[in-house]
């Protein structure tokens, strides 16, 4: 029983390590405007300056940028889930040799730095006349956004006993129906994980909007934050207030979907084994 009592301690300590920066961002956003960052950790500033949020929203059009980011995310995340899971499912249904080759190819693609693709990508989108649109921000989703997401799905589908797919085949389901009715419900936590990862990646993507978007009304949240820092470079509380506003949707989204990570139906016989 003693071991049970302490078993969550390492996880709690790790959580604290990850939560502290968020906390200091929050507390920093409530310091008096214009003050430099504190020299020692400050748990709660006094007095609380809620006006930083009002000021940040006055200086830059954060609501519009948030809507723009949501627009991009609303296309990129579902599209990523669709293409990455299709690719992962197809790879999982291949025999060992071609599947192995595709896994190796995905790993190689994963090692290519995104910055190495900036110029060719820009050239392509420029040629297509898609600069200053959201298409370049959404287009990677057509390829699953990252080979890592494809591999996550591949490994998850590989864990499903092949007899389940064979049963579906015998019962008259085609590949698409099998993917939707058998495979996807069995990898729901992975789907949620990929959705969250893709959401975070797309939401926080700074480089692509910086390169492809010119009109201010098309800016996404990271560009809005940059604009905020440009307007008042040393006003850290103001900048942190903007950061809190930019981070909040991600945290809210995670809180909403975290229950799917913790699904309990994992007794003996789950996956038929």
């Amino acid at each position: 029983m003693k071991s049970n009592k302490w078993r969550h301690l390492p996880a709690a300590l790790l959580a604290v390590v990850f939560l502290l920066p968020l906390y200091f961002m929050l507390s920093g956003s409530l310091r008096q405007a214009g003050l430099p960052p504190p020299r020692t950790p400050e748990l709660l500033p006094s007095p609380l300056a809620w006006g930083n949020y009002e000021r940040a929203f006055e200086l830059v059009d954060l609501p519009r940028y948030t809507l723009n980011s949501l627009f991009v995310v609303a296309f990129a995340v579902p599209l990523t889930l669709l293409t990455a899971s299709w690719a992962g499912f197809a790879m999982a249904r291949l025999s060992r040799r071609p599947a192995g080759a595709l896994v190796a190819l995905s790993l190689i693609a994963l090692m290519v730095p995104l910055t190495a693709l900036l110029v060719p990508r820009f050239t392509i989108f420029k040629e297509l006349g898609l600069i200053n649109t959201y298409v370049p921000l959404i287009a990677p989703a057509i390829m699953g956004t990252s080979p890592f997401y494809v591999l996550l799905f591949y490994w998850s589908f590989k864990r499903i006993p092949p007899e389940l797919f064979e049963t579906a085949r015998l019962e008259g389901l085609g590949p698409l129906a099998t993917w939707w009715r058998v495979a996807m419900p069995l990898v729901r936590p992975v789907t949620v994980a990929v959705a969250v990862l893709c959401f975070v990646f797309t939401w926080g993507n700074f480089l692509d909007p910086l390169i492809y978007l010119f009109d201010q009304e098309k800016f996404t949240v990271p560009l809005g934050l940059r604009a905020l820092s440009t307007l008042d470079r040393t006003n850290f509380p103001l900048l942190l207030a903007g950061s809190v506003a930019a981070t909040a949707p991600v945290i809210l989204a995670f809180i909403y979907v975290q229950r799917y990570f913790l699904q309990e139906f994992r007794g003996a016989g789950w996956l038929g084994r």
Partner: protein
Amino acid sequence: MAELRFEGVRKDYGEVRALRGFDLEVADGEFLVLVGPSGCGKSTALRTAAGLEEVTEGSIHIGDRNVTDVRPAERNVSMVFQSYALFPHLSVEENIGFGLRARGVKAGRARVKVLEAAELVGCEKLLDRKPFQLSGGERQRVALARALVREPDVHLLDEPLSNLDAQLRVYMRAELKKLHQSVGATMVYVTHDQVEALTLGDRVAVLNQGILQQLGPPDDVYRRPANRFVAGFIGSPAMNFFPGERVDGSLHAGPFVFEGRPNLPERVEVGVRPEHIQVDEGDEGAPAEVQVVEMAGNETYLHLQADKSLVLARVGADVRPEVGSTVRIRANPADAYLFDAETGETLT
């Protein structure tokens, strides 16, 4: 329901030949058991019948249809897997009705058929549960109900009792037999367990290395094995084999001497089942030293060293000689099986 026929089926996995010229006819309404050791090709045969594997050569027929190139879903067969392959995210009812829904059967009609199938196998009280809430035996029933609900032409069962404990396996074996008697469907059952094969099958097909060794009623396969492989594989504990030697008109085989077996080929092998070896402490028979005594409840297995041969005898529970003691063993010539030492074929 319909008959199932394999005609000269060959199946290669790269260099490995899983089935070689496999011919088999399963009659309409028959319960046929395919039995053999691991890797003998029995599951491959079943999977080719289901359409889950393409045949390299030959053809497969269900009723009067050549289904060799027909998609699995259009063959109208069902399959029960060793792992049951129940969909974990669906309830028992959804699992049973899965094929009906996939084929567009209306919800009301599907529900009636699901209930009928569930009642047939005795899982009608489990309809709202998920597979992980079921015991092994219950999952087995659900898998059977899912196979029955579509009323397919042929049921294919791939070692469906292997995951159950010994007691439940015996129970489910009887249930399966009853089920077949009540629905009268064509069933092909794959197992490596020869007890299952003998108790369940109307006929038993013994496979080894992708080749059909013998096909016949269980009693025939047990009493009149076609060759040394079948004789050694069917029967538990396995048959004893001794190299035979002709000496002055009699046949010497390990510790046994059988008189009056003329017209035998030069090299023969003699098989004697453990239950046909008589053990006593008198003066008749060959002396044998008791090495191991295994109590098996209602019988005893004796591992004996007779001259240079190791002999396994199955005797009554009350026969329990001391380890290290010497007993006498005999075998009736009528109980001795003779095989050609070259080909392994049974000699009559």
